[in-house]
């Protein structure tokens, strides 16, 4: 995943490796559901990939298997949620947000039931399985649906907090998790609030506004740039919708360049959300959306794909320098 230089920077920043957000999700849900029998997980032959096998063993009465049937998964989740259950529909993001998009739109969001949709192995987590298993469209598709909070955690802390938020939310929530082990990015005592960005590093030349599994790369790039005399801000934006417009506008006002970073196609995701927020406020810093371009995705593991498209310390540093003309 990381070049030797990036690994050295990880050491310099003292980042500790946690585990996959998916695993953190599953354990957090198990803990919450153990205390609250109203929490129900719904799976589509996905309890293994969702790391929910221990949950299923511990709480067999609080998990429902629908088989490989994502439309039924979301409709059924909506029905449970309409009955006062805290239902978590868990399925690979690629299927959940494409096959059953209409159920998400109508049964959950339009009916306004507090269902939680959990897209697992999201983005290019499934890497070499190919594009059938990638979800590079989900943020775009879901951002265009009213009444859905979209959260893409960057590390185990954000994951834990996002799951807790979702369990107590009174409106629909989409959570998106990858399956690579994540570095812990936040110091103890960090506050998580849905809809709020979390600052990771202050800076004035360039701001990296990143979400999900790309945040660590933005952080490394910022540290790298500092060594080259460039002051780089990093914001983690776990909540893609509603966007923390205050934090976005502050970055656009205070920094000469803004780079958004996401494990998603460059269309319709975090980058375009940030772009429209800045433009509508009359701000036009140098701007670049770092994501996956509108092309057949290069083949390979998640790390290969990230590197290929410049979602790496080196790639993001170069993007920033190019924008800054330095």
């Amino acid at each position, binding site marked *: 995943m990381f070049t030797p230089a990036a690994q050295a920077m990880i050491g310099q920043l003292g980042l500790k490796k946690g585990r996959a957000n998916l695993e953190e999700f599953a354990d957090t849900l198990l803990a919450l559901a153990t205390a609250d029998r109203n929490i129900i997980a719904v799976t589509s032959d996905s309890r293994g990939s969702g790391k929910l096998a221990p949950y299923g063993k511990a709480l067999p009465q609080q998990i429902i298997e*629908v088989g490989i049937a994502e439309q039924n998964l979301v409709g059924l989740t909506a*029905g*449970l949620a309409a*009955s006062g259950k805290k239902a978590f529909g868990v399925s690979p993001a690629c299927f959940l947000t494409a096959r059953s998009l209409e159920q998400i739109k109508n*049964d959950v969001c339009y009916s306004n039931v507090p269902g939680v949709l959990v897209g697992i192995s999201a983005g290019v987590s499934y890497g070499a399985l190919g594009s059938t298993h990638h979800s590079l469209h989900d943020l775009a598709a879901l951002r265009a649906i009213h009444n859905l909070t979209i959260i893409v955690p960057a590390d185990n802390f954000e994951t834990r907090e996002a799951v807790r938020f979702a369990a107590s939310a009174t409106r629909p929530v989409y959570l998106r998790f990858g399956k690579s082990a994540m570095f812990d990015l936040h110091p103890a005592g960090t506050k998580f609030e849905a809809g709020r960005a979390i600052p990771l590093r202050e800076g004035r030349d360039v701001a990296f506004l990143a979400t999900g599994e790309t945040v660590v790369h933005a952080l490394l790039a910022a540290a790298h740039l500092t060594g080259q005399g460039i002051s780089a801000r990093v914001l983690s934006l776990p909540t893609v919708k509603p966007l923390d417009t205050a934090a976005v506008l502050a970055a656009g006002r205070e920094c000469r360049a803004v780079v958004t970073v996401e494990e998603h196609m460059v269309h319709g995701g975090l980058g375009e959300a940030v772009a429209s927020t800045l433009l509508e406020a009359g701000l036009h810093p140098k701007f670049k959306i770092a994501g996956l371009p509108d092309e057949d995705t290069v083949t390979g593991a998640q790390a290969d794909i990230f590197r290929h498209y410049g979602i790496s310390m080196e790639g993001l540093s170069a993007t920033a320098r190019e924008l800054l003309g330095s």
Partner: protein
Amino acid sequence: MTDSELALKAVALRQRMLRLIHDAGAGHTGGGLSCLDILNVLYNRILRVTPETADDPRRDRYVQSKGHCVEALYAVMADRGYFPDAALDTVGHYQSYYVGHPTRKVRGMEMNTGALGHGLPICLGLALAARMDATGARIFTLLGDGELAEGSNWEAAMAAAHYQLDNLVAILDHNTLQITGRTRDVMSNEPLADKWRAFGWEVRPVDGHDYAALTAALTAPPPAGKPLFILANTVKGKGVSFMENVGKWHHGVPSDAELATALAELAAAGKKLSEAQA
């Protein structure tokens, strides 16, 4: 309420539904008339829910999967007292909650439906929750026969039997017509009874305009562990001679003259029923 009282009420409900569609300038006339007797029986005999208990977590629930026939449902629910009849004068109007498909902003509506193939999966969730909470509630949905081409129905049919949801009832408004024409020509779905039996359901074919038969089929509990499928054979456009079995009345809106004719025809039928009762 006796069968003949229900039949008399159905005349008034059909009249109200037709006036509503005429006034709104849009609506699903043929399918509304085909499912109206089913709704009449459900709301006035079967469902253990009233306007007063519409928020009770233990209530029976009805989700209209064929959401486009909401005008029939509006007429039945207004009559039942869920909302004032005057609300129906706003159907389709700017800023009215009374739109062309059910939404939860209307009191008593359980879910927002209208895209087909959604009601049954939702009802699985409702039925599972009712069983977890041991509320004793039964969950009902109404499907259209054209709607059965949606694969999500069959995902849910499989899961309902797998989970032995004997508190779940799916009613098919089997009027054999859809927007393009005869369902058998558009996408044949027969043999329906065999299909649902093969999926593990208790299947009860019934005349969907026969109150006694509908009531019996909906009342008798299915064998333990079996979801219940009521194959209600109906007539699209039922009750208005020139609308019966005529494709264009799928969402045809009666003109002033057609409305007058239809209302008069229904009034005559009502008069006959009253005389028979007296």
